[in-house]
């Protein structure tokens, strides 16, 4: 659960994992790479980008290109 001014979002386990990797130094590509390595898979870029975009639209995360 993420609480913010006048609202809240409930995160699933994947969301929590992505957010834990948002540490202010990793890039989006780093986060995708870390998760793909962790689960020995590929093709997570679109899911991660979609998740971060939804949070960014609420002003809950900011990130560069």
């Amino acid at each position, binding site marked *: 659960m993420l609480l*913010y*001014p006048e609202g809240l979002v409930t995160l699933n386990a994947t969301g929590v994992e992505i957010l834990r990797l948002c540490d202010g130094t990793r890039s989006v590509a780093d986060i995708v790479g870390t998760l793909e390595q962790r689960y020995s898979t590929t093709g997570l870029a679109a899911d991660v980008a979609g998740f971060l975009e939804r949070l960014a639209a609420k002003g809950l995360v900011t990130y560069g290109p």
Partner: protein
Amino acid sequence: MDPKPLWLLAELTYKCPLQCPYCSNPLDFAGGRFKRELSTAEWCRVFREAKALGVLQLGLSGGEPTLRPDLEELIRTAHDAGLYTSLITSAYRLTKERLAALKAAGLEHVQISIQGADEALSDEVAGTASYKDKIAAYHYTRELGFPLTVNVVLHRRNLHQVEALIRLAESLGAERIELANTQFYGWALHNREALMPTKTQLDQAWQVVQRERARLGTRLEIVWVLPDYHEQYPKPCMGGWARAYMTVTPAGEVWPCHAAGRITTLKFENVRDRPLEWIWEHSDAFQRFRGDAWMPEPCRSCPRKAQDFGGCRCQAFLVSGDAAVTDPVCSLSPHRPLIDAVVADVERAAATGQSPDEWTYRAAPASRALAAKG
């Protein structure tokens, strides 16, 4: 199963240095009903009970909440209990040191009102010279790293400043600006003739909001609270009666919203007499309009009832005298002519240049005088 509350609004005191004529506090805020304020220990118990009941968001409001010398302790307790805390303040005489102390106690979000985009109008509406303190406090929130919401209540005298208000919030780097068209309860209802805008004013302001939203994107969230007298359907008030929200007043009465205390046909309980959970689940005030079994026509058979919950019970009571009828702003309500008449009066007065601009400032002497008059 009963729904669980997510939000608690704690009205810590009805004392306030500002005197805004649109205040949503009760007209009789200075009377005996609200006099014996809850102690520090009582509020702390309320916050812990609220968290146990499911509440996650706590608004600390008033009156002016910073007048409570124990605010730091209240915030620390709420924060430690796991509540997300928002301070809703006028920022009058609020120092950077106090804000820093509140942050150290765990305060997470600050909302600071402003009454106009420039000093002259803001101070005139507030009835108290406070603009300079507000601007200073906005900067303190930036320096201390708080998320900031700029709150503005809109009405006939300041709607023309919507663009300047948005630009002000933008220049401050605020995260949100809440442009709340006056809802007519409490002092705002008493001052309705002087506050109600014209349709033209509202249309112009709405165009500005749409343009500015497109320009600003996610940089600044612009919240626009609808002027419901000018809508076709009622607002989904509080997301439905007793579904997600409760207000605790300064002396401990618990209301389903911050205006509900005016409904004389409901019985309200007090946190001094009952646990919050019991009040939420069993009290008359919370049970009466929960769900949709209470609904009369045209709500009962209306497909919109799951969307707007029949609108606002307080407005139904204040306009029609019966809290159990469809919100009179609904175009399907038999009471809608009462709303249309008010709107028409405002348009007629504006067209002939005779709009009344006299309002009663929200202040203790006026409150006592109005209460004496009944």
